[in-house]
């Protein structure tokens, strides 16, 4: 009888150990990102070893996301929080981090990653910064992911952070990054070839969210529909912009999906320019599900618009 109990005990311990192994195998890093673009890049390098979810949607203005309590449910389980940084999320992410009750993702903790440290940042203001300049970002333009080279740098940094948090899978994350790097290099060659005929072409964007894309693909952003970042269009500025576009022979207005088209359309009517709703983020449209498709989509729109306004 005693032997039977010993056997039973051994079986129970074995089952317990096996269940722990199962749990350990199933355990993935929970990665929460502020935007879909960071989620897309994390997914590229994290593969099936991470669960990744973005708080903001791709068709949402990332400056003005509501810090909903449902986000806290996600944040409290997070092993890693990846933010765009440069104060893009200053209006909504800090209270979520504070309220999450998750010490792992507090600013300065090991599970908090400000991805801007890896990227080339443009439009860093020099001199005095005041609100007279609008809702300007004192640390530089936060829309930096729209440059494939920055995408590569971000992916490398995220892979390194994932490996740091999950050392046994470090080589997996590095291999995933190497694969992403190769695919991105091939895609970049294709995108560069598609955009080469339009080097130097002039365009206007609604918000100043395009500098990295414009720099990479040698486009010339001559003005913005907003008179200052975050300030809605005014009639006087719109008239000035129409005059500028006519003088510069600018025939394209790019609008983010969360802005109203009324003013851009009136600018288009006044200048003969084409108004195009482009996607600043992955998930802006259903078919744009990853970082590559984002550039495919936008470059397709832009080249088509340039062709139509030769």
């Amino acid at each position: 009888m005693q032997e039977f109990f010993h056997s039973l005990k051994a079986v129970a311990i074995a089952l317990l150990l096996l269940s722990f192994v199962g749990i350990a195998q199933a355990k993935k890093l929970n990665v929460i990102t502020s935007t879909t673009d960071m989620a897309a890049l994390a997914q590229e390098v994290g593969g099936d070893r991470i669960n990744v979810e973005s708080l903001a949607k791709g068709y949402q203005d990332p400056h003005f996301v509501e810090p909903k309590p449902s986000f806290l449910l996600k944040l409290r389980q997070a092993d890693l929080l990846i933010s765009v940084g440069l104060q893009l999320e200053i209006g909504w992410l800090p209270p979520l981090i504070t309220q999450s009750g998750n010490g792992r993702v507090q600013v300065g903790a090991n599970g908090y990653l400000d991805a801007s440290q890896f990227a080339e940042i443009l439009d860093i203001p020099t001199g005095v910064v005041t609100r007279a300049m609008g809702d300007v970002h004192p640390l530089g333009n936060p829309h930096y992911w729209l440059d494939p080279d920055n995408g590569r740098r971000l992916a490398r940094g995220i892979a390194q952070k994932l490996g740091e948090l999950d050392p046994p899978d470090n080589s997996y994350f590095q291999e995933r990054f190497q694969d992403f790097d190769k695919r991105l290099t091939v895609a970049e060659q294709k995108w560069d070839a598609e955009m080469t005929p339009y080097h130097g072409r002039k365009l206007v964007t609604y918000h100043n969210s395009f500098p990295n894309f414009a720099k990479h693909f040698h486009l010339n952003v001559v003005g913005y529909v907003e008179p200052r970042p975050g300030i809605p269009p005014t009639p006087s500025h719109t008239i000035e912009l129409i005059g500028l576009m006519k003088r510069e022979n600018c025939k394209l207005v790019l609008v983010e999906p969360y802005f109203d088209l009324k003013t851009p359309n009136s600018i288009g009517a006044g200048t003969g320019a084409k108004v195009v709703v482009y996607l600043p983020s992955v998930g802006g449209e259903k078919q744009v599900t990853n970082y590559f498709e984002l550039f495919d989509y936008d470059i397709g729109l832009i080249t088509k618009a340039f062709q139509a306004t030769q």
Partner: protein
Amino acid sequence: MNKRILVISVLAFSCIPLWGQQANPPDANAQNAALEQRIRDLEDRVISLEGKIRTMQSAQAAPPAQPQPAPEAPAAPNQAPAAAQTAPPTTAPPMPSPNETQSGLANPNSGAVPVYGGSSAAAKALNPDVSVIGDFIGAAGGNTPPAFATLQPFPSLEMHESEIGMQAIIDPYARGDFFVSFGEQGVNLEEGYITFTALPAGFVAKVGKMRSAFGKVNMMHNHVLPWVDRPLVTTNLVGGEDGIDDAGFSLERIIPAPKGIFLEATGQVFRGDSDELFQHVQRSDVSTVEHLRAYRDITESTNLDLGVSYARGHNDGTINIPGDFITQLYGVDATVRWKPLRRSIYHSFVGRSELIWSQRQQFPTEQRAFGFYTSADYQFARRWFAGGRFDWSDRSRFANLTDKGAAATLTYWPSEFSQIRGEYRFTHYAENRDSNELLMQLIFSLGAHGAHPF
């Protein structure tokens, strides 16, 4: 500029040997590719260093990386441990460790004595975010409240409040928030508390002076209200503009719940002084507030927020007559929000109601009062909001006297940092006296004011 010159010089010198080798035509393509790759690598290194500098600069104001227990490492049975620890060789330049780059500059093992508040320019980076929010109110029309009414009319022109906010991360475990409100004739510490953000088991604790978690409006600062004034029920039953705002401590935790429901419980203990609502005589006369909040996303654009609250404390009946006189408040709040994500900056709707029951012990008989408000606010353009509110409330000391009111508001935002609001307010006092007022408000914000909780 000097940095760029240095980088260009490094690039130029590093490229000289490669240029020299380009004289050999068969190898030209390979050499060009190598040169381009090297330039890219150097560019990456420069960008990486720039990022590191940016992070270090901002890290001077932030705490060093918090010591964390290592996350449970997922097993990788299909990989040899040695291989798993070794990254494959890469041509990419070495990246700074994210952990390194997010650490503060101070090295605790360096042996150097830390300097706090030094006179160098870098010391300014350690200052908290400072903001000032001005709240100017003008009033026109007649409002002569009866003798026992709690509603106090605004003067014709008033710099109603100047709220100074100072907010910063204190250390790896906590952040601090101070809000000092200057009226025209006095100063009040509206809130000043430390929040412990890294407690075990998901708890979040606050210690200091704070607005209590009773209902919705009590937690709101004046500048985030969708109206110029506060609802009658707040004025009559919950201590007026300051409300339950006291020194004490608070503990909150998210409670696991099914079906994506956010459930949060908050318990708070205060000294027991909140305007005319609670007053303590002895140290044991503490007041308490409990709040349970349930929230759920109905769709990605619509959500429902429900709460129940309870507060208990000693009232001023104790001052004149021996014995314990307790005031208890029971509250129910409901908020429905709609904000279409694709057009979130143009359209939104918030409907809200709070129902509050007051049970006040006083001489000669206990007073049981009830009050509520219902409001709706709709954003119909990027800069424009319109709203309405209905008020109905007994008075806490004279529960048989009921005041009623209604208000309509129109708000214009020149930018995110200023707003102009007009409000028509009608009040019908229990003594059968009516008032019609037009209130005007100008709110303007300077500096970096941290976002308020949802």
